[in-house]
């Protein structure tokens, strides 16, 4: 996992509650990403960051926000969780352009 830690690894939450997932990396990578993975959809980009306090939307950003106040941490927040946000969430990080990204082990989120 190249020094990428996601927390929590599993979470069950109720509809309407806020949820924050954390991605922590120890390699000083500049670029960080949040994806969700659902059956039949592969990995879909939610938000990504290209530096501290520099973030942008991915293809499925509605209902999600992110923050990156320091290089090593990238937080994904569901302001008001819905059942459609039940998914497996992956964080990734890349050190520079035209290099591979390294992934965390994933967070399984269930919204009931």
């Amino acid at each position, binding site marked *: 996992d190249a020094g990428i830690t996601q927390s929590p690894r599993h979470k069950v939450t109720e509809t309407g509650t806020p949820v924050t997932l954390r991605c922590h990396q120890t390699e000083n990578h500049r*670029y960080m990403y949040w994806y969700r*993975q659902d059956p039949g959809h*592969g*990995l879909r*980009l939610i938000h990504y960051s290209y530096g501290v306090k520099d973030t942008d939307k991915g293809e499925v950003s509605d209902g999600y926000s992110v923050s990156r106040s320091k290089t090593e941490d990238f937080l994904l927040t569901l302001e008001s969780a819905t059942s459609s946000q039940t998914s*497996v969430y992956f964080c990734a990080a890349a050190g520079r352009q035209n290099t591979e990204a390294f*992934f965390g*082990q994933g967070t399984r989120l269930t919204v009931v």
Partner: protein
Amino acid sequence: GESVGLHLPTLSVQEGDNSIINCAYSNSASDYFIWYKQESGKGPQFIIDIRSNMDKRQGQRVTVLLNKTVKHLSLQIAATQPGDSAVYFCAEPAGGSNYKLTFGKGTLLTVNP
């Protein structure tokens, strides 16, 4: 839990055969491509990459071919083993300083002993 492989393109091969997994990309200006392997319950792991100034790159038992004319990538796995069973994704970073990284839907490879 439900498999992430459901409804994905699938490829089933016999152990020892060669496997070819295909990927189409959309941006003719893309200059770098990556292949990842994802085993059940794990995060994707890097396999091999290729830059647009190359047509072919070889790794250990894997070869990636790039056809820029038709915007097509393929991953060839030689002498496929049961441990190669996984979902395989190609990734195409978008150009520009933001380094937006998006993935194809993936292909589920099943190796039969």
